[in-house]
């Protein structure tokens, strides 16, 4: 099991945290792959854990730069872009970011909905005011 270590070290144990059966299933999705021996499975599993930790760390760094406490997809995207080998195979697979104009529209709608408070009983509406004079 991985332990809590200072930031500059990564501890690996012979018992990976990722289930090797699932890793094997993912590998088998590719029909071109014939056989994979036990040691290869263990190595790829550990490498994957290492990769995950690496991505997490880099994303956290980006979030920190942007003064955010929550690591978001956009931080992961920047982290991927910054590491060429990762970017080469991963950038196109990342989900598309929501368009800024769409996001703003959604935010505005949500805001106006939230602002609609029920009016107290007996309140005159402005329509009534104008109707008086017609």
């Amino acid at each position, binding site marked *: 099991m*991985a332990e*809590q270590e200072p*930031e*500059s*070290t*990564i*501890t*690996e144990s*012979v018992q990976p*945290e*990722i289930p090797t059966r*699932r890793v094997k*299933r*993912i*590998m088998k*999705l*590719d029909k*071109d*792959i*014939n*056989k*994979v*021996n036990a*040691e*290869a499975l*263990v*190595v*790829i599993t*550990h*490498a*994957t*854990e*290492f*990769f*995950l*930790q*690496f*991505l*997490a*760390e*880099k*994303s*956290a*760094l980006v*979030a920190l730069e942007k003064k955010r*406490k*929550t*690591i*978001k*997809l956009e931080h*992961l995207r920047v982290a*991927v872009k910054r*590491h*060429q*080998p990762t970017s*080469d*195979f*991963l950038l196109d*697979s990342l*989900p598309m970011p929501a368009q800024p104009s769409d996001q703003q529209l959604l935010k505005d709608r949500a805001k106006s909905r939230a602002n609609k408070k029920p009016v107290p009983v007996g309140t005159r509406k402005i329509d009534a005011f104008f109707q008086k004079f017609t």
Partner: protein
Amino acid sequence: MVEEHDKLLPIANVGRIMKHILPRNAKISKEAKETMQECVSEFISFVTSEASDKCHKENRKTVNGDDICWALSSLGFDNFSEFMLRYLHKFREYERHKAEQNKASSSEDKDEVTSYGVGLQPDTSAPIFEFQILDKGGSSSSANLK
């Protein structure tokens, strides 16, 4: 039929591994965690495919540990490759030792306990086998990355 979740690693494991490396107060959005799941599956497929291609070219049917290490290096993950080669070397030593132990116990021959620099404990059923990759002066995984 392959279920969607079969193509991904369990999100609980993904979340746990991330939490180990991040500071205590760090939060990860659900979207980011789910994307991480997909990223690691891509990584597995990508590296395995590269290793498999090498085997095909060399007329070998079975991908082994060295092929994975080679693929990591070939794809630009030199730091990972270096780390995994060392791990592989120790793993093979451990396997060899285990095989020798089994042989020795079956022939009722008590060998001396050999000491290994990696802290192997052959007596325990779940051996503790740890070693660390130390920082080379940058952040833990950025050293020597292109």
